[in-house]
């Protein structure tokens, strides 16, 4: 890999600096099938221009494709777009969304572990592309809410019909949103936070 000379690295712009009082950060993950608007949602609420980070995983670490006796490993790079919201002077919230293949980022250790919760973004034209990701969140006990990204030409099913189709428990919030709009995306995050708050009240672990 090429590392740029130290002098050419430009860090964050001055206006993107966190205050020195920033003591801790939390993360939430925005998941869904390909092209449902995850990166759009990250960008619409982030206070910084969204950035991209990546992780390289060898096939041994991935463990899904057998190499049929070959000793050589192929590396897969998994990229992740993320944004940031300074919640208070002390607390920062990071939002991770991803382009690309979902099956890989569940193997990205530490991405979901420790996340406060997740938003599953759904496009009703292709509801089924979000099924796998929801199942994986359930298996890992990551609490989530479902946000329907309202594309203009998408079928509008009643929420209760969607709840049945997605086989979601009554308490899991389902809301409609426009991921391009900051206020709408903010409301989705707020819904997730209220849901997480309700879980502490009932003592349930999702």
């Amino acid at each position: 890999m090429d590392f740029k000379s130290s002098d050419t690295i430009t860090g964050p712009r001055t206006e993107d600096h966190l205050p020195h009082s920033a003591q801790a950060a939390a993360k939430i993950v925005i998941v869904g099938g390909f092209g449902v608007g995850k990166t759009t949602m990250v960008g619409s609420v982030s206070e910084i221009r969204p950035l991209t980070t990546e992780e390289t995983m060898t096939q041994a670490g991935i463990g899904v494709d057998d190499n049929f006796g070959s000793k050589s490993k192929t590396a897969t790079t998994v990229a992740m777009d993320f944004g940031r919201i300074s919640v208070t002077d002390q607390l920062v919230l990071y939002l991770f969304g991803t382009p690309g293949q979902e099956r890989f980022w569940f193997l990205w250790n530490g991405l979901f572990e420790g996340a406060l919760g997740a938003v599953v973004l759904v496009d009703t034209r292709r509801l089924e592309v979000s099924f796998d990701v929801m199942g994986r969140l359930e298996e890992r006990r990551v609490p989530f809410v479902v946000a329907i990204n309202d594309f203009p030409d998408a079928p509008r099913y009643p929420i209760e019909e969607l709840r049945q189709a997605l086989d979601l428990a009554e308490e899991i919030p389902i809301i409609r949103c426009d991921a391009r709009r900051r206020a709408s995306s903010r409301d989705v995050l707020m819904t997730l936070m209220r849901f997480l708050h309700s879980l502490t009240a009932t003592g349930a672990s999702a």
Partner: protein
Amino acid sequence: MTPPQRRRRQPKQEPPPPPPPEVPEDGRGERPPERLYILTGEDNERAPIDLVTLIVARAEPPPSAAPEQSALLRICQAPLSVAEISAYLNLPISVVTVLLTELLTAELVQARAPVVRQAQADRSLLEAVMHGLQKL
């Protein structure tokens, strides 16, 4: 027109253990200098550094620092998450993690541990986040 039907899954019996929050103190002075080539190897030692651990430089880069360490120290004059460091340096997370492990051992950076989800989430934390979101 009816939507396609999903079936919910049950949590797996043994959820993966959460990463320990503190940084270990191992590995002092034992690594070869050609680090970048072993970073994505099979035995990379990972400190429990999270994507959103906040890193702050504690000192100026020493003359002996590798270019990528100097660059890291320079951009961390104000707190910066590991994910942001990775993005700005254009290095994978695993590489940044190793660089940070060395810089932590040398006490050139300070790490501020992230808030992670517990079995029982912290209500006051969630309330602070909600309050902050309302201001957006």
